[in-house]
């Protein structure tokens, strides 16, 4: 199911530790999402002609992950819908409205992991993706992209997954093929140690 493909991507994005407002987890395996160095990009086909790309400028959340025991880990990510950006203010407002994300009623996209496992060198993360008021299980493959020290220890993860937006009640333009049903989401997370 494409939803399952998308979930790993989301999970990867969410795999980065805690964010701005989220309470910082404590422990050696706890991380917070570095919002300024993490990215959420989505791709959808327009008029069945070209791929269109948009971004969410903000992602926050926490990740707790022991590489030796990933099954004990947890990922919690929040993407404020208000941060959607497509280089056109009017289009952004439309995306935030009832035809798409219905942001006034559902201001955040959230992902909460329910299961984390190993899949070769990568992680397979399953969780609940809540989008536009609809919650669906999603599974995604999360790749570690690197780790290092830059003003403190950091680790990076990336995931790409595809969802069908109609499954989340966002079917504007699907019937006329004005805008594709399948949306590919690319999440790149940079995780830092949460502030004590």
């Amino acid at each position, binding site marked *: 199911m494409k939803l399952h493909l998308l979930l790993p991507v989301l999970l990867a994005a969410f795999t980065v530790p805690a964010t701005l407002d989220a309470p910082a987890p404590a422990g050696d395996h706890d991380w917070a999402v570095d919002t300024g160095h993490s990215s959420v990009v989505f791709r959808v086909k327009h008029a069945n002609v070209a791929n269109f790309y948009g971004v969410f400028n903000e992602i926050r959340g926490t990740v707790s992950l022991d590489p030796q025991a990933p099954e004990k880990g947890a990922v919690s990510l929040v993407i404020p819908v208000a941060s959607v950006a497509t280089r056109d203010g*009017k289009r952004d407002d439309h995306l935030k*409205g*009832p*035809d798409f994300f*219905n942001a*006034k*009623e559902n201001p955040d996209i959230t992902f909460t992991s329910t299961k984390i496992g190993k899949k070769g060198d990568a992680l397979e993360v399953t969780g609940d993706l809540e989008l536009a*008021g609809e919650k669906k299980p999603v599974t995604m493959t999360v790749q570690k992209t690197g780790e290092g020290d830059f003003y403190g220890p950091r680790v990076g993860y990336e995931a790409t997954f595809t969802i069908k937006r109609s499954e989340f009640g966002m*079917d504007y333009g699907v*019937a006329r093929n004005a805008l594709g049903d399948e949306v590919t989401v690319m999440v790149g997370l940079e995780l830092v140690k949460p502030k004590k």
Partner: protein
Amino acid sequence: MLQGTLPPIAAALLLVSLGGARLLPLAAGLGLLVAYGLLKRWPDPPTELWFAPNGTEWLLWCLAAAAVLALLEHFRLWRGRLAAGSAVLLGGLGAWLVLAKVAARWPLAETLLHVGLGGLVTAGLALLLRASLHRARPGLLPAIAVTVLLSADAALLVGFGGSALLGQLCGALAAAVGAGLGTALWRRPFALGPGDGTWLGIAHGLFLLAGVHLASLPWLVAVFAAAAPALLLVLPGRTK
């Protein structure tokens, strides 16, 4: 677009042809629910919405309830002050339900302001439409005016509110009234009564309220649009 307009048009043509204008609220209510089902999905029942609110779906159920009240009034099972009072209650309740989810994040003062004001305006519009349709001379003119009113609401919801969904649903109601009006070509007479004022006034109020709080309809535009039914008072009155 046809998915949104065909069900209410078909329902209005069928039911009004069979039972006259008194079945118009039933046709509009059924048509609207089916239109939403085709445009988006079948609305959750109120028992589920109570725990997981969705403003647009509450709007649909409030209009369905208003249609039932209007139907009862047309069949003289519900009338007088009871009918007017229930229109006021449903208008207030509708505003609260439509805003329930967004209001959950508002401070108390803001909730009281927006829900209170929205409820007062919606209830007031129901009474205004009831009074206007009671006063107006029976005929096609009030129905034409109401069709124009709802069509204008739909255009504002799409053009200023940026919501095709709300615009299509409001347009579906306009289409239902317009189709009912069309039955006058082969079935006379067609006239709206005070009972229709209940569901039409509540629809006008709740769609504008949803446009402001669920979409991006500017307040000023909504205020001017809300005041538009006052023009119905200039329609020719009944002769004594």
